[in-house]
Structures are given as C-alpha cells and as structure tokens.
C-alpha cells in the first residue's frame, strides 16, 4: 500500500467511526477530533522533502494494513508488563493495552485523593472544563501529520492532574503496552499531565510490546507545568522489533517551572521522538536527556525543539546514541530564542558511539536566535570505541566483547545519571549492563 492510499484509509476509518459512533463524546472532543482529521487530510504523512523528516522514511511505518486497536491481546502476564515497563511493584500505575485502559492491571493506591490519575476514555464523555481547556492546546496539530492523526483518533490515554502545592516523591508509571498475535494494530494513546503551581511529580511513560509482530503506536503527550512546578518525566521505549513508534511530547512551562524530560529508546524497528518544549514563563528551566540504543536495522530519530519565549529561561540538553549493526540514528536539535527572551541560556550536546562500520548517524543542531543578550552553545560528536581504553581493559583479562560492552555502558552513564528518578535509573543500569554483555 502506498503512503497516499494509507492516508485515504485512515480518513475512511475516521468517517466510518464517526458515523457509527457519535459515541457520546463531549462536544469539545468531537470538535477537536474533527479538527485533527481535517488537518491530517491536508498534511498527510511527512516525506523526506520536509526538512524535519529528511532522514526518516515513514512509508514502511504507515503502509502496513493496520486495524484500529480496541484493547485486545491477552497473551501476557501482569508481571511481564510491569517488568518490561520498569515499574516498581506496588507503585501507582495506569496501564493501557493497545491504547485502551486496563483497570485490572492498574492501581492508583497511595496517591492523594486530590490527584487526578485516570483514563481519558472514562472522563471524555463528561463536559470537563479542564480537559476541554487543556487537551489539544499544546501539541500543534497543524504542524505534524502524526499529531493530527492522533488527535483525530484520540480515544484513551492517561490524564494526570497534580493540584497546586502537591509534591509527590514517588514516581507514577504510565504503561502503554502494544501488540497482538493475530494482526497489526494501530493505537493513538493521548496523555495529559498538568502540574499545578508549586507541585512536583515524577512520571515514567513506558511503551512496551506484549506480542511479537508489527504494530504502530502513535502517541502524543501534553505536559503543562504551572509556575514553580517541578516535573521529572521519562519516556521509555522498549517497543517490539517490528514495531513503529511515533511519539510527541509537547510541554509548556510557566514562570520558574522546571522540567526534566528524558527519552530512552531501547528497541523498536522505527522510532521517532518529537520533543517540543516551550519556555513560556520567565526563569523556566528544562533539562532534556536522550539515550538511544540501536542494533540490527533499527531506526531511531530524535527531533527536539526548545523555544525560549520569555527572559532568563535555561535549557540544557544531552542526547547520546549507541548504534551497532546497520542501525540508523538521527538527532535534530533545534533551539529558538525569541526576541523577548533576553538572558536565555541554552546548551546542547549530542554524542554518538558507532560500534560497527555499517551503523549510521545524522546529527544536526539548529539555532535560531532573535534576542541579542543570550548564551547558546552546541556540539556534536560521532566516534568509535577508544582503542587505548579497549587495550587497557583487555590487558586486565577482560575479553574483547566484554571490554566493548563495558565501554559502551560507560559511554551511556552520564546521561543515565541525569535521570532524576532513582528507581528508574537503577533498573536502567541493570538492563544496560545485561544488554551490552549480550552484544
């Protein structure tokens, strides 16, 4: 199926569903979905002609004959899902199967009563002022066909609202598990995270596979940090080896708000992460971390865009890639400093380690600066393992493979250290030690 046929198929599926259902959705939601669809009909899927998609061909991802997911798939255990998603046992969690909330796998025990942690589908029938005001406001559906598509098919996902002043020490896990043995499915999970003023939360959003075979997960997360809030957010991808993942995080930060947003990609046939952060309040601060590990023919594309809108905001970005086999990594880091954003401080670093001659990486910083009193720096490197370091380790008795794996682990370590979620960092470290040992 060609890309344009695929586009037609998504449009037809939308019209069919709308005619059949009018599923009691609230007016705001119905209107938003329609806006998403009309934007998608106009934009379609991005092609290599679009500069922001130059190195990533989405044809394979979108032209499989996907069925719209409805929560099926039972070939897994709860324990597997939690282990795959790096979920601490007993921690609060919302679990979604192929885009549909699975209450039996979820638990909100331990959360304060005024924290809202719920499934969007359970809430979207109501005329909810908060949802109506927030959802669709931050992720730009006119810019990106995948965001438009997600908006058109938006049905379920996590809604997390932290009231002002509420500080949660322990992380909340959002797990999106995909895959069905019978046929390829497409799902469009939609997440909304709202932090009230002076609140604090840690969120781990895990995307995992529960069945072999292809699927397409088209996820959008919107995060709003009100004044002086603190959010530690990590998107973790352990997608299936034939899975396609298009993910967008759109974050808006108010005055003095802090966001650490990490993207950790451990597997997936084709993964694209869009991160858009708007530093909309004076003195807002964001730390972006990325770790992408590819092997075989995996393709991992990270597109980040940080907008300094108001003065005295800071951003610090560190993305690191380790690519083996014939894997392809892409990093495109855009920083825009608007005219009024004086005293902005923006730092960006991208480092890549190529473990094989066939691995490829494209890295591209992009700075647009319209203010005159700013500090901006960027740097990117592509390298191989240091032969001196390899010899040093081998001269102590470590085998060549073990020496390589230890150095790869070491390469990733500083970005792992920057994940401010202790439980996640521990699990990720264990996972990486094990993973590299097998390489």
């Amino acid at each position, binding site marked *: 199926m060609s890309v344009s046929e695929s586009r037609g198929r998504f449009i037809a599926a939308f019209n069919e569903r709308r005619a059949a259902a009018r599923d009691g959705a609230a007016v705001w939601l119905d209107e938003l979905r329609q806006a998403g669809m009309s934007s998608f009909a106009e934009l379609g899927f991005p092609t290599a002609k679009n500069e922001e998609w130059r190195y990533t061909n989405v044809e394979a991802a979108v032209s499989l004959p996907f069925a719209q997911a409805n929560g099926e798939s039972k070939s897994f255990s709860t324990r597997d899902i939690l282990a795959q998603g790096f979920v601490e046992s007993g921690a609060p969690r919302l679990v979604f199967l192929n885009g549909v909330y699975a209450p039996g796998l979820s638990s909100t025990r331990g959360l304060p009563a005024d924290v809202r942690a719920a499934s969007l589908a359970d809430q979207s029938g109501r005329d909810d002022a908060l949802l109506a005001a927030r959802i669709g406001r931050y992720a730009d559906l006119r810019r990106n066909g995948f965001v438009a598509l997600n908006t058109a098919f938006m049905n379920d996902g996590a809604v997390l609202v932290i009231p002002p002043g509420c500080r949660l020490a322990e992380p909340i896990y959002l797990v999106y598990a995909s895959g069905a043995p019978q046929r390829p499915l497409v799902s469009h999970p939609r997440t909304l995270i709202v932090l009230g003023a002076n609140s604090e939360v840690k969120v781990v959003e895990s995307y995992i596979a529960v069945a072999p075979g292809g699927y397409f997960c088209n996820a959008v997360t919107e995060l709003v940090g009100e004044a002086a809030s603190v959010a530690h957010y990590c998107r973790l991808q352990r997608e299936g080896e034939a899975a396609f993942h298009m993910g967008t995080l759109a974050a808006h930060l108010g005055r003095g708000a802090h966001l650490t947003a990490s993207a950790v990609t451990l597997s997936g046939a084709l993964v694209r992460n869009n991160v858009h952060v708007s530093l909309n309040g004076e003195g807002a601060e964001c730390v972006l971390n990325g770790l992408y590990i590819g092997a075989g023919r995996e393709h991992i594309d990270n597109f980040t865009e940080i907008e300094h809108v108001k003065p005295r905001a800071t951003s610090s970005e560190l993305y690191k890639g380790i690519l083996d086999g014939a894997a392809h990594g892409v990093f495109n880091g855009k920083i825009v400093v608007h005219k009024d954003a004086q005293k902005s401080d923006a730092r960006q670093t991208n480092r890549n380690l190529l473990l094989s001659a066939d691995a490829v990486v494209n890295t591209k910083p992009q700075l647009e600066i319209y203010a005159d009193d700013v500090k901006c720096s960027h740097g990117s490197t592509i390298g191989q393992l*240091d032969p001196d370091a390899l*010899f*040093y380790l081998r*001269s*102590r*008795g*470590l085998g*060549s493979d073990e020496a390589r794996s*230890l150095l790869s*682990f070491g390469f990733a370590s500083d970005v792992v250290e920057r994940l401010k979620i202790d439980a996640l960092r521990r699990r990720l470290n264990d996972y990486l030690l094990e993973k590299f040992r097998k390489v």
Partner: protein
Amino acid sequence: MLDIRGLRVAVAGKEILRGIDLAVGAGEVHAIMGPNGSGKSTLAHVLAGRENYQVVAGEALYRGHDLLAMSPEARAREGIFLAFQYPVEIPGVSTTYFLKAALNALRKHRGQDELDAMEFLALIKDKLKLVEMDQALINRPLNEGFSGGEKKRNEILQMAVLDPTLALLDETDSGLDIDALRIVAGGVNALRGKDRAMIVITHYQRLLGYIVPDFVHVLYDGRIVKSGTKELAFELESKGYDWIKNEAAATH
C-alpha cells in the same frame, strides 16, 4: 619464565626494537633503563599484547608458550600484568566493578569459582591498605579525575588483586612526588616473591632506590647495550646517558 630472543619490532614501518635478547627467571626483578625514545615502552606494550606493532623477527617465550601469538586477555589470564605509564580513564565504570570483572575472568580461566560482591570486597580491603587508598576512590569511575599519584596507586592495587606471575611496570615512577613514590614502591616490594618476576622500566635511577633490582639493562636505540647488577644504575646516575650513547656510537 620469560625468554626474549632476537626480537625486532616495527611501528608504522619504522623499527623501534632492533634485536632484543632478555631472559627473566622466577623471583627476579629486572630494571630496564634508557633515554627517551630508546624503545622501553614499546617493549612493555609488545609483551602485553598491544596491537599495531609488527613483530619483524624473533620470539618471546613465556613459561614455554609463544607469547606473541596470544591475545592481550589471554596473556593477562596466564599471569602477565602491565602497569601503564598513562592509565586510561573510563567514565561510568567504577574500579570496583571493573576489577571484580577482571579478577573473575582470571579465576574462571584458572578453573576457580567466581567471587561474589561480598567476597571481592573482603579481598580488596586488604589490598587497599597496601597502597594506602581510600575505598571511596574505587567506587568512582575508573581513573576519571584521579591525580597522577592516585592513578599509579590504582595500577598497583590492580596488580595486587590480580596477582600476576610476570609484572611489567612501565615508568611507574613518572609524575610521582616523593610520598606517592614511597607508597607505590612499597606496594611493589610487598608483591616481590620467589614465584613472581618483575620488569621495571624507568628513565631515572630514583625509583631503583626504592625497588632494588637484581639486574639492570640499558636500552638504547632499540638494543640492550649494557647489562649488569644494581651498581650499573648508580653508574648511569652519575655519568648520565651520554656515556652510553658515546659508547654505542663507538662500537657501531
């Protein structure tokens, strides 16, 4: 234990070692001295298995094995240890983790059980005292941000833990102040024994005041031009390397 015969080694087509003969027996400590560029470090690296050296001629037998045919890790597992002149910094990997992995690779090779974290900790505590190192240091990334002295002490710590049969010390004294030199030499001396041989490579006689060798060899221009006992080191100290250079020039 080690028998080097007619060893000629080139780097990028240029011959650095031009015929080395050296026999080292168990329990012996040999010092190899020489001016900069004489080939001392090349010899140490060739014996440890560094790639990018072409052996043009000759052989090196280690306990009867063809040493030059072995991989670096195989040599380490057979008991060879090189203390580096410039120990490499490895971010993200602690000395503890790395050294436990190395020791277990050696133990596995010898058919011994691998040590778990507790057993390893007990072992390393003793060895830390030997080089007067704080345990906090070995939980940090390997050599990263270590001072020159800390790096060299870490080399001797590794040597003590890995318990080699043949130790090669490459300019272990370089960049050390007198206190660090005393500690490092003390660590080395504690490891001397009748089953272990050592080759101590140094530019200066200073180290040999602390680690007293059984034999001293002078390497110049890729050849051992003079061999003797520890008195040779004192002679070099007073006369300088020009004496050797002039003598070598006269014979060739």
